[in-house]
């Protein structure tokens, strides 16, 4: 978590009108400690800011793009209806009128896929199709599209629109650990299971720790074509994280280190203000994408 180290170091080294601190003085210890804690605070708060606020911006932006793209696909009847679909592709539009939620569902449930919105579990039929469809959504971070679904009541509508048509589900139950599964759907029946996480106790909205399932059923769902993948990798399971992001994290951190060194070198030649005008956008962009990568390493339902 040394992402923003250079910001702190910049502020510490602001010169010249003050009395210089010499090495070995008690003041140096205080200054170093104070700077280190400032760094820690900046890094932590930046990540919290990114997860709760900036990530939400990012998710809304993705949703807007996905919506227009899916809208075009629906109009052109090219929206995917089954089989193996590339992760990240929009596959359905799920709206929950009782909560005012309308989200484009993307294919795939890895932590990275869910940054753009709710994700469809690839080994299940698409939302709207007969059988058990499963959709994951984040509970607290990156727009928190499913943060409110545990407040749904039995009978509330959930509408799924996919490339074949629109199906209205009705919430049947909210399942937590230990609750029995509902009866398996038969024939043309469909079930849409929305999966998210919830916390308990103080700050519960910030502490999504346990998976929770909302089952909604429809008597008449659309036919489901075959060809589903038989299973999904571990990174797409409930509460899984995607360790495949580690190489990318290394790259991002290396770029940050390079930026730090670059800023230090540049300040020998140019004024501080000039250097920061140029470096700040780069630093923010790098921090942003580093945080995205870190999010992929965290549980997908957070």
């Amino acid at each position: 978590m040394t992402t923003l180290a250079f910001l702190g170091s910049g502020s510490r080294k602001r010169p010249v009108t003050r009395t210089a601190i010499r090495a070995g003085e008690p003041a140096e210890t205080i200054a170093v400690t104070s700077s280190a804690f400032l760094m820690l605070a900046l890094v932590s708060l930046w990540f919290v800011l990114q997860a709760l606020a900036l990530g939400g911006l990012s998710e809304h932006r993705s949703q807007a793009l996905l919506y227009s793209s899916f809208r075009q696909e629906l109009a052109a009847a090219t929206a995917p209806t089954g089989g193996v679909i590339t992760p990240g592709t929009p596959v359905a539009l799920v709206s929950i009128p009782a909560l005012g939620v309308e989200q484009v569902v993307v294919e795939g449930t890895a932590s990275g896929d869910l940054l753009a919105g709710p994700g469809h579990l690839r080994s299940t039929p698409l939302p709207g199709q007969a059988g058990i469809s499963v959709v994951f959504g984040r509970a607290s971070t990156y727009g928190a599209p499913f943060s409110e679904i545990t407040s749904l009541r039995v009978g509330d509508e959930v509408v799924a629109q996919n490339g074949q048509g629109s199906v209205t589900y009705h919430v049947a139950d909210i399942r937590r650990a230990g609750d029995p599964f509902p009866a398996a759907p038969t024939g043309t029946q469909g079930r849409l299971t929305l999966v998210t996480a919830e916390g308990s106790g103080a700050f519960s909205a910030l502490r999504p720790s346990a998976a929770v399932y909302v089952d909604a059923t429809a008597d008449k769902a659309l036919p489901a074509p075959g060809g589903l993948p038989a299973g999904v990798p571990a990174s797409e399971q409930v509460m899984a994280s995607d360790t495949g992001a580690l190489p990318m994290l290394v790259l991002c951190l290396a770029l940050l280190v390079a930026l730090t060194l670059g800023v230090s070198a540049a300040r020998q030649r140019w004024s501080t203000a000039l250097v920061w005008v140029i470096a700040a956008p780069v630093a923010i962009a790098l921090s942003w994408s580093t945080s995205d990568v870190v999010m992929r390493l965290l549980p997908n339902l957070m």
Partner: protein
Amino acid sequence: MNRRMMVGATVLVAALGAVLVPAASQAQPASTSGVAWSQTHDLTRDYTVGGVAKTDERHVTVTASKRTDLQARERINVSWSGAHPSGARAANPYGENGMNQEYPVVIMECRGLDDASLPADQQLSPNTCWTSTWGQRTTKGPTSTAAWLHDKYATDADTQQVSGVSTLPAECGTLPATFSEHITPFDAVGAKTFSGCNADTMPPEAAIGSTDPPNELEAFTGTDGKGSAQFEVRSDTENASLGCSHTVACSLVVVPIMGLSCKDTNVFCNQTGAFAPGSSNFELNGVNAAVSPQYWWSASNWRGRFSIPLTFGLPPSTCQLLGTGVPTPFYGSELLSQAALQWSPAYCLRKDRFNWQDNTMPDDAAFALMQSGQSAAAEVSGRRSADGPDPVGYAPTAVTGFGIAYEIDKPDNAGEVTTLRLNARLLAKLLTESYPASTMGLAHPGLSKNPISLNLDPEFRKLNPGLDTSHFSEAASTLLTLSTASDVIKTITDYIAHDPEAMAFIDGKADPWGMRINPSYKGIKLPVSTWPLLDTWIPSTPGQICLKNNPAPYLPKVAAPVSSLRLIATATLLSWPNVQTVCDTDPTTGLYKLGRIAPQGVGSRFMLGVVTLADAQRYGLRVASLQAAPGKYVAPDNAGLSGALAVAKHGDPFDPYTISQASIRKSSKAYPGTMVVYTAAKTHGLNAADAKKVAQFISVSSTEGQQAGRGNGQLPAGYLPIKDSGVTKPLFATAAKVGNAIRTQSGKPAATTPPKTPTVPANDSALPTGVDAAPTTSTPATGAPVKTPVVVATATQPVARTMPITSDLGGVLLPMLLFVGLAGGVVAGFGRIALRARGRR
């Protein structure tokens, strides 16, 4: 097809056949009492010894244990007395292996009936009798030694150079002028004839290496003139060329070989036995042909035949083909399957009854299916905790149980073992894979001092003296059992759990002879409903490339449990253990695989398997007596089942009876394997149509269905009839009461339990554990008329519940970061203030 007329006709035919037996034999009418069949013939042989004409007379009685409503592979016990003692006994009496014997009794299945008044194509003749090799049908040799040409009773046609056929078919090759040949062609069903003069001219079922071993046999008569054999009948499913079915009549033909009667003093025809009566001929040395089964078709032997008319029951597919209405499936215990075979046509062929269909499924899964409303009723053999608000009633439907079937030969070819005694500790030793099975298994940690297989165990030898104690085999070191969940496994393990000696063994104490449990199973908690395979020891096999390249835990491959009790019955019937330890290399791909060992040879058979008592009765399997009270061994007959019912306890009137193993251990008459199958259905919350069907089933199955018999709707052997009298009287009353409660749906739902609708997930690891499986096309409730036990039998978990999936990281990360961030900010702020205070800034 009017069955009553058909049965009447076959009885008539039997009587006629008895009258029409050739004049030399004086016939007595067939016994028609019960299901058994018996007849007596006077057989004679005229021959000359040293110029003196002699007549050998025998008063032979043949008895068959059953002959009507047969099912495929059912075994008939045939016994006889008064026959000529046999000599030159072969180790294996089946098919061509038994040909080198003297004076045996040939038993075979033939199409047609022995009735001269029938059309020719419905009559029995040597040409419709099944043999599995051409050598049993064709005899060829120099005319000078051809004994059959001197048969006193042969027609002129049969004494020609080529006989049996008018001219030698081209496919049979040519015959030298000095040779004679007799051919008995095989007339397959549908007017096709196979010449039967070489391997290429036999029906396809007689191909070398065909799936089924020969069923015709040349059985041995003891020196007292008595003998017996188990004959396995084959239907058109197993043998399409023979084609016996409920529409094509067949007979069991028993030909006691008397030898050829001779019209002259030809030395080959007038031979008597070269071997002494009772002697053995394991080397298959040549015997005197005139008294061998070689000439079973000759007029001399054929005229002394006993023709037992057989009728086949409706095949298992009857209801799929002829049933009316959509089937209503009940799911549950395999213990009911033999009864279901006879019961279901009594439902599906009647307009006034629903189309009942019985499917095998683990008891727990079947019960869960019933509770979730996906099936109308479940067939289970014990109480289950209700997982819903609706009360469940249990109506006793069948009293039966499991048995330990065995197929064991006595040493020195002295025949099969007919009584076997087992106790709980022996069962525990077998189930826990505590016998090393082979010298390779002796390297297993903890097993090196154990007897290699059951027959070498001093405890077993003490209980069952006189068995082979010098050889060991993998098959003799295991008990073939179920891989799936079942109340049968629960009862077996409960039986073991109530035996202090067996449990001491399981807890690691050596038995009095020093045998110890396989460490993998030490301390296993019993009872269980699925027997686990816990041993993971892989033998080190340095010299054996195939095993080395294909490492697998050894003892689980010896145990190799199967998915249904029916498969165990078939394996025991064919004495083909399911031991999967043969390592083969495919030469083309270079791949290695482990496969099943070969069927055991007659004379050295030793295998044990868990079967249902009804399967044992159907297939003529022998079943071991189990220890009840210490030292008291109880056989699984009706007395043993009644004895167990006598100690049964009953609480709530809608609950099942409890046959506790603790009370069986105090009884000297109770069979420990006794189990009652109940029809369990909701007494509240079942829809009216289903309630009516279940009530109808309970009413019919507890009255008409409890009439012992072999016909449709009757109760086959292996079940104790539930009657309104005697020890089953309370069960009968309970069935009526529960049936009534189900019909009227008069149960009171439990008020406090929240509504739950459990279901059974397929074990699909592709889905995350919190998400249940998507339904496949095998959804059982749609009433497909095909029995699909396999599809649903894989589900073993009774009620699926949402798994807890949590992430501690997710629970603490954001608050922690927030706290660290704020705290860091505060500390940094204080640092700045401190510096400013020192005037540094």
